């Protein structure tokens, strides 16, 4: 027989404490007796001792037995021989980088796993797994217990959040498929395992602060002035003071002290700083997780908003050239089919539509019935605007009472999308985002752009251009999110750690974004930088990690019985006996 949770056996050292209530003199019970004549001399001998003579009734031994059984049950004894098929699953998500005193949680998990491996039979075989980016086996199958620690030493946690999966189900399936006798899951989440799956929780709740948002943007698409917006969130139970620093080109550009309330967020912004291709925001604080104290962002495109307009009626669109910061090219729908849209960041389909949704931001103005985005309704003359979403970047500052397009058609999203502006006959503006691209379909024609002559429509036009421009500078990518670098085979991606990765033959996406920082795509002489950040706030919340519910899967083979399932009953029986003892120990009825 062996114990799966031998730590519980240390409870045996606490058993002598059970003697204390029996040894310590109880508060004397007051009883009336006929005469104390014969008791006075006897009392003089027994008084003055803090400890009474040990009186151990039979119930004491019953209690001792039950507590012993309880400790044994918590030790999880099994009659099996030592398991031979073991799986060790190490949680390598970002929160495992959190420091516990001097060591990270991941290092502690490795040490616990090594201790576990030392206790295994030499004939045992061990498989190692990591949880992110996907539950995957590391190294060879069936490692000897002596070989597994060396492999574990090469592993490190990624800057990735936990996957949104049911670990209980996934690990149970792994146990069943691979036939493991025991699976040990080392993680920083609380919970408890059952059956063949053992959950080993590493670390304890810690306070933490994080930079949860960092964005560099131009004040408007026509402006060259940049603004840095930084949001700091506290996952601490007390108010914290931090210094926020904006860096660019290896220099400190600006800094500010902030006070962040307990479990609150504070945002701050910097302006008038020199232009650099990439920026870094950092908070100076000594907390548990250093990873989320930094965040990265790249500068927005400095050039004009490049628009490709596809229209059978180009005249109306030429008016957009009066807006500063725009670069407009107008082509016919036939020409679009022929030459494509290389080099433009926004496409405007004016009374036209492509057969498939373009992989670019796109505006559809009165699209034909055959379009991939919306169903188009019957024409309506001089519609009134009856509703609009508020707040929304598209409806900002627009007086919809004065917005009276001469002609409109109601729209209905084909699959998904949200109505932004509505008439009594249906939506006349539908917006949606898909795969990082923004699409807007209008049931009325906002062009030509007339400036002050049609102020509501002009404001609406500027709003939609700003909405697309905002999408262009984007928040960057999250760790683990594939990057659509448009890289061709043979081009090189340099990771934040300086590692050079050659893009494969068929790779349209670069998916090894496991660490936050700047990813640099070397495309001949031109370099493209993408900022990748940890964007899972749950990883930063070290004080209240989500518990993991594991199902009690039976081991694939081996183990006989387990007393562990009965421990609540032993505890209950112990408590009942204590009550009985109290009841029996009451003073006898007195006169």
């Amino acid at each position, binding site marked *: 027989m062996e114990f799966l949770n031998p730590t519980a056996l240390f409870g045996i050292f606490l058993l002598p404490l059970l003697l204390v209530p029996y040894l310590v*003199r*109880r*508060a*004397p*019970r*007051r*009883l*009336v*007796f*006929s*005469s*104390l*004549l*014969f*008791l*006075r001399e*006897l*009392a003089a001998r*027994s*008084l003055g*001792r803090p400890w*009474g*003579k040990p*009186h151990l*009734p039979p119930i004491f031994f019953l209690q001792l037995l039950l507590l012993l059984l309880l400790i044994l049950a918590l030790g999880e004894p099994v009659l099996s021989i030592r398991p031979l098929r073991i799986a060790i699953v190490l949680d390598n998500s970002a929160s495992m980088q959190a420091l516990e005193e001097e060591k990270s949680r991941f290092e502690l998990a490795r040490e616990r796993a090594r201790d576990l491996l030392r206790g295994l039979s030499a004939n045992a075989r061990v498989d190692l797994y990591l949880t992110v980016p996907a539950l995957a086996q590391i190294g060879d199958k069936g490692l000897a217990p002596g070989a597994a620690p060396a492999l574990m030493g090469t592993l490190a946690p990624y800057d990735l959040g936990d996957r949104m999966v049911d670990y209980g189900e996934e690990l149970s399936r792994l146990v069943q498929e691979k036939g493991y006798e025991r699976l040990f899951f080392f993680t920083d989440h609380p919970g408890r395992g059952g059956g063949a799956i053992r959950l080993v929780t590493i670390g304890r709740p810690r306070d933490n602060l994080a930079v949860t948002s960092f964005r560099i943007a131009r004040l408007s698409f026509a402006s060259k002035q940049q603004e840095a917006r930084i949001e700091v969130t506290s996952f601490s139970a007390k108010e914290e003071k931090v210094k926020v620093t904006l860096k660019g080109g290896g220099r400190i550009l600006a800094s500010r002290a902030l006070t962040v309330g307990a479990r609150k967020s504070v945002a701050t912004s910097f302006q008038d700083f020199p232009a650099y291709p990439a920026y870094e925001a950092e908070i100076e604080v000594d907390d548990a997780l250093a990873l989320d104290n930094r965040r990265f962002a790249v500068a927005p495109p400095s050039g004009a908003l490049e628009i490709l307009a596809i229209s059978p009626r180009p005249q109306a669109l030429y008016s957009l050239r009066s807006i500063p910061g725009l670069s407009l090219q107008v082509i016919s729908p036939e020409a679009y089919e022929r030459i494509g849209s290389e080099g433009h960041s926004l496409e405007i389909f004016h009374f036209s539509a492509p057969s498939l949704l373009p992989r670019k931001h796109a505006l559809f103005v009165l699209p034909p019935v055959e379009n991939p985005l919306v169903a188009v309704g019957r024409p309506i003359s001089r519609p009134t605007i009856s509703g609009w979403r508020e707040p929304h970047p598209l409806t900002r500052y627009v007086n919809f009472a004065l917005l009276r397009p001469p002609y409109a058609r109601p729209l209905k999203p084909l699959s998904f999308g949200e109505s932004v502006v509505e008439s009594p006959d249906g939506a006349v503006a539908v917006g949606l985002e898909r795969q990082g691209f923004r699409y807007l379909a209008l049931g009325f024609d906002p062009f030509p752009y007339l400036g002050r002559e049609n102020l509501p429509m002009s404001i609406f036009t500027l709003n939609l251009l700003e909405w697309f421009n905002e999408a262009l500078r984007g928040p960057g990518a999250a760790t683990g999110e594939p990057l659509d670098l448009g890289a061709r085979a043979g081009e090189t991606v340099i990771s934040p750690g300086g590692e050079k990765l050659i893009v494969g033959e068929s790779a349209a996406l670069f998916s090894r974004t496991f660490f936050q920082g700047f990813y640099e795509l070397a495309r001949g002489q031109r370099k493209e930088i993408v900022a990748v950040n940890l964007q899972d706030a749950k990883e930063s919340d070290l004080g209240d990690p989500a518990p993991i519910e594991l199902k009690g899967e039976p081991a694939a083979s081996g183990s006989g019985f387990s007393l562990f399932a009965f421990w609540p009953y032993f505890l209950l029986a112990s408590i009942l006996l204590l009550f009985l003892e109290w009841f029996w*120990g*009451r*003073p*006898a009825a*007195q*006169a």
Partner: protein
Amino acid sequence: MLPAPFTADFISRLEALRLKTRKQFLGSRPGSYSSPRRGTSLEFADYRRYSPGDDIRYLDWGIFARSDRLYVKLFREEVDLFAYLFIDASGSMGFPSPAAKFSRACHVALALAYVVLANHDHVKLHLLQQGGAPVASPFYRGRHRIMDCIDFVSSSTPSGPVEMAPALAEHLQRLRRPGKAILLSDFLMAPASYQQGLNLLRALNLDISVIQVLARPELSPPFPRGGLALVDSESRAELQIQWGGELRREYGERLERHNRELKSFCHQSGIHYSLFVTDGELDEFVLETLPTIGLFK
């Protein structure tokens, strides 16, 4: 109404009993107990020379025939008995409850009183109580006065500390006629205290009997093990002890030694002694135990 133990059978058996005295007393009326005086009973006492005026019916003609001298036969006088029942009404007699100990002691006293009353003798009940004037009933005579005896004992409750010797002395100051004294108490007091009290009774030339009344919890206290704060039922003094098996044994030994000393003193002083444990049967004690110590004829 008679208490529960006094069944018709028990009462009829009590009527067959008579108190036995080892001393002769001067009674007030003719009765069935010997008096030191010469009288007209059937029990021969002595001879005396004939004097003119003597009743010639008592001349012993046999002696005159043999010695030609006139002698008259003298007979003992038989008188009634005065019985005094002293009941300890101290606080300790109320343990574990007045009904369990004091009432049981009163039942014994009532049974003895009935025996006396049934023989047309005189009985007087005395309560040994705390302070104040001594509480005693008048002399009762005739079996119908048993109800008065019941009323008398029912009106009292045990309380407070009682020093036996001073309490008895108060009662004895008012005692004029010698007779039979029966003392009912738990005697849970220092030996010197009860010895002084019993010696007072002896000094008055009373025929003394002692009935020690103890409750079962006094013989083997049912205390739980562990620390106890015991309160004396009389003095209310508190005593903290660590109760356990050893203490229980030593307590039993000391109580037994105490009772042995009491019994020994009574034996040396010519006093009848008997122990009544309150959970025992009253009729068994009165009809079987008390005759064995010579309390009844």
